C-alpha cells in the first residue's frame, strides 16, 4: 500500500500508486499450470545415437529419416551452444533430459483418445470434437512428443488439403516430406536446429495444393505435460501455387520449478502467388516471480517465399517462457515476394526475450515490413534483434521497420540490435525506433474517467500493441488481448 512521506501529515487516500502496480506487474497466477495425470511412456534420460535410433523406431520411421536424424546428431556433437543472445541461458545438461514422452494408448482401443488427455484440452479451451460445418478452426493437438488428435483431417482432404501430424505425414506422404523437410532450415543451420533435427518428435504438416484457399484456420496446440522432458516440435507448411492458408499456433505448460526445453523448428515454403499467414500466441509457463522454473523457448522459424508474388506473414504475441530466443524469418527469393513480421513481446518478472526477425531479400522488387512492439515489466529484459539484408540482385526492393519499446518499470530493460545491409542502390530501407515509458498522465486521465490503474495499464498496453494485434485472426485477437491484460495484472494492495 501507499506510504507517503512520514514527516508530512497526509490525507492522500490509501491506494496503490501506479508505480507499485507497474512494479508488481504482475503476479497473476499462470492459468495453465496444471499437470494431467495420464499414464505416459517416457524414455530414459540422456542423448546418444541409440536414443536417436529409439525415437525413430518408436515412431516407425523409414530408413531415410533415421539417416537424416543421425547426420543431424553427429553434426550437433561438433557444435557448442551459442552465447550471443541477450539472455542468461545457463549451461543445459542435455543428458538430464528425456527426449520422448507420449501419453500411453489403451491396448484395447488404440484409436481412442485418453479421457484425461481430452479433459486437458477441454480445460485449455481446445476443441477436439468436430462440428458439422467446415468453418472455424481445425486443430492438431500435441501433448509432449506426440500428436493426440487432428480434427477435420478427412474433410480437409476432400479439398486436397493435407493437415496431419508430421509423424503421420512421414508415413502417408513420404515424398512430400522428403522433398521439403530441412529445405528451409537445414540441420546445419544452428545448434538448436541440429538438435531438433536429431530428436524431433511431433508437430504439424500442412500442404495446400495448387489454387486452393484453405476454408478454415489450421492450428496446432502444443502442450508440455511430462516433467524433465524436452519438447522438440517440428512443423512443415507448404503452400503450392496460388494457395492460401492461415495457421495458428498456441502453447502452454505446467508450472514447475525446473526449466524445460522447447526447441522447435518451423519451416514454411510458399510457391508462386501463394500466401501463408502464421500466427503464434506463445504462453509457455514463464517461471515464478523470482525466475524459478519456466520454459526455455529456443526456436528456429523460417519461411521461404520461393515463388514470384508469394507472401509470408508472421504474427507473434509472446507472453510466456522464462527465455525466448527466436527470429521468425523470411527468405524472399521469388520476384515481387513479400515478407511481414508483426510482434508483441511482453516480459515481466525475470523473463528474458531476445526476438525479432530476418528479412533476406534475394528476388527483385521484394518488400518486407517489420513491426515489433516490446513491453518490459518487472526485472525483465526484452530485446529486439533484426536483420534486413538486400542482396545486390534484389533491385527495387524495400523494407520498412518500426521497432518500439515500452518500459513499464525502471528495473526492466529494453534493447535493440538492428542490422541492415543493402547491396544495391535502387532499394529503400526505412528504420524507425522509439523507446517510451508508460505515462503517469495517461494513467491519471483514465483514473479520472473511472478506470482503475490496472485496467488503464491493460488498455494503454493493448493500445500500444494494437497494430500487431489487428493482424491476428479474429478468434485469436480476443484471446491475445485478454492474455496481455491478464499478464499485466498485479496483486493490488
Amino acid at each position: 500500500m501507499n506510504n507517503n512521506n512520514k514527516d508530512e501529515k497526509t490525507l492522500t487516500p490509501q491506494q496503490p500508486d501506479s508505480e507499485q502496480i507497474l512494479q508488481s506487474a504482475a503476479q497473476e497466477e499462470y492459468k495453465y499450470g496444471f499437470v494431467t495425470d495420464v499414464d505416459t511412456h517416457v524414455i530414459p534420460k540422456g542423448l546418444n545415437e541409440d536414443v536417436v535410433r529409439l525415437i525413430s523406431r518408436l515412431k516407425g520411421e523409414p530408413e531415410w529419416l533415421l539417416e537424416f536424424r543421425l547426420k543431424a546428431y553427429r553434426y550437433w556433437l561438433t557444435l557448442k551452444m551459442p552465447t550471443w543472445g541477450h539472455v542468461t541461458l545457463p549451461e543445459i545438461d542435455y543428458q538430464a533430459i528425456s527426449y520422448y514422452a507420449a501419453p500411453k494408448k489403451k491396448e484395447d482401443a488404440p484409436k481412442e483418445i485418453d479421457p484425461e488427455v481430452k479433459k486437458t484440452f477441454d480445460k485449455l479451451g481446445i476443441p477436439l470434437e468436430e462440428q458439422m460445418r467446415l468453418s472455424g478452426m481445425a486443430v492438431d493437438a500435441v501433448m509432449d512428443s506426440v500428436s493426440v488428435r487432428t480434427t477435420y483431417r478427412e474433410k480437409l482432404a476432400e479439398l486436397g488439403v493435407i493437415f496431419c501430424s508430421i509423424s503421420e505425414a512421414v508415413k502417408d506422404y513420404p515424398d512430400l516430406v522428403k522433398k521439403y523437410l530441412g529445405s528451409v532450415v537445414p540441420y546445419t543451420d544452428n545448434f538448436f536446429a541440429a538438435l531438433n533435427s536429431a530428436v524431433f518428435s511431433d508437430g504439424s504438416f500442412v500442404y495446400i495444393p495448387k489454387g486452393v484457399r484453405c476454408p478454415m484456420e489450421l492450428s496446432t496446440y502444443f502442450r508440455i505435460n511430462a516433467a524433465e522432458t524436452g519438447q522438440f516440435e517440428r512443423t512443415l507448411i507448404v503452400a503450392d501455387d496460388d494457395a492460401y492458408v492461415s495457421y495458428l499456433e498456441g502453447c502452454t505448460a505446467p508450472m514447475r520449478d525446473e526449466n524445460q526445453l522447447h526447441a522447435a523448428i518451423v519451416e514454411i515454403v510458399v510457391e508462386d502467388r501463394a500466401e501463408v499467414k502464421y500466427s503464434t500466441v506463445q504462453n509457455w509457463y514463464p517461471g515464478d516471480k523470482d525466475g524459478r522454473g519456466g520454459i526455455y523457448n529456443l526456436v528456429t522459424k523460417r519461411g521461404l517465399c520461393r515463388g514470384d508474388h508469394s507472401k509470408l506473414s508472421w504474427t507473434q504475441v509472446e507472453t510466456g517462457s522464462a527465455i525466448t530466443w527466436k527470429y521468425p524469418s523470411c527468405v524472399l527469393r521469388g520476384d515481387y515476394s513479400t515478407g511481414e513480421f508483426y510482434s508483441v513481446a511482453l516480459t515481466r518478472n525475470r523473463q528474458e526475450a531476445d526476438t525479432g526477425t530476418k528479412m533476406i531479400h534475394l528476388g527483385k522488387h521484394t518488400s518486407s515490413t517489420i513491426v515489433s512492439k516490446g513491453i518490459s515489466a518487472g526485472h525483465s529484459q526484452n530485446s529486439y534483434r533484426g536483420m534486413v539484408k538486400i542482396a545486390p540482385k534484389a533491385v527495387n526492393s524495400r523494407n520498412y521497420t518500426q521497432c518500439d519499446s515500452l518500459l513499464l518499470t525502471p528495473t526492466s530493460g529494453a534493447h535493440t540490435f538492428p542490422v541492415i545491409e543493402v547491396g544495391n542502390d535502387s532499394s529503400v530501407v526505412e528504420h524507425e525506433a522509439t523507446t517510451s515509458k508508460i505515462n503517469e498522465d495517461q494513467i491519471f486521465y483514465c483514473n479520472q474517467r473511472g478506470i482503475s490503474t490496472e485496467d488503464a495499464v491493460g488498455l494503454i498496453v493493448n493500445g500500444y500493441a494494437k497494430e500487431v494485434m489487428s493482424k491476428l485472426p479474429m478468434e485469436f485477437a480476443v484471446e491475445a488481448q485478454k492474455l496481455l491484460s491478464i499478464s499485466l495484472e498485479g496483486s493490488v494492495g
Partner: protein
Amino acid sequence: MLEIKDLRASVEGKEILKGINLTVNAGEVHAIMGPNGSGKSTLSAVLTGNPAFTVTGGSVVFNGKDLLALSPEDRAHEGLFLSFQYPVEIPGVSMVNFMRAAINEKRKYFGEEPLSAADFLKLMREKRSIVQLDNKLASRAVNEGFSGGEKKRNEIFQMAMLEPKLSILDETDSGLDIDALRIVAHGVNTLKTANNASIVITHYQRLLDYIKPDFVHVLYKGRIVMSAGPELALELEEKGYDWIKEMHPEL
C-alpha cells in the same frame, strides 16, 4: 454537494493551496478566476486525486462522502468529472473502447450489469451530437491527432457520457476559437440540470459570456480572496488582477 474546508496542498514540498474554503450546491455554477500561478489548476487536480499533489490539511465532503479518502476512480464513479486543460493522448485506444471501459466501470461500482454493445453505441450517438463530435473522431484513438478544439469538445462529450454530478472545467476555453467556444459552451449548458453543478476555472471573462456563473471567486496565492456574483467577472475583465493583489499585500 461539495464542501471544501481549509484545504491545503503541496507539490514537491511547496505549498500551493493555503486554506481553500468553498461550498457548491446542486444547480449552481461557480467560476474560479485568478492570475497565473494562483493555484486554480492545483485545486482541480487535488479534488480529482492527482497523485502528483499531496494534501496537507483540510477536508472535502462530496455528497456526504469524505472525498479525499476515495481513489481517483471512485471519485469519478461518485460523480466528479474533470475536463482537462490538456487532454491526454492515448495512442491505439479507440474512444469507443475507452468510453465503454469508463461507463462499465461506473456501472460495476453501482452493481449494475455492463451496457450492451447496441445500447452503448446508441448512447454514444446521442451524446456526440451535443458537442457536434463527428463519428470519425469518436472512432479514433483517444485524443490522438485531435486539434485543440476537438480535444476540448471531446472532453465535453465524455462529460455528457458520464453524466457527472459535479464537473470541473479547467481552462476549457484556452486554445479555442470563438466557434469552438460556442459549441463547447452550448454542450455544457445543455447538460446543466437542477441536480448537477459545475466549477468553471478560467482566466478570462470570455467563457462566462456563454456559461453564466452564479458565483465568481478570485483565487490568489492559494486562497480565495474574494467571492461575489457574476458582476465580479466583468469587473476583473475591466480592471485586471492588480487591484486584487494590492488589496492583499500580506500574501
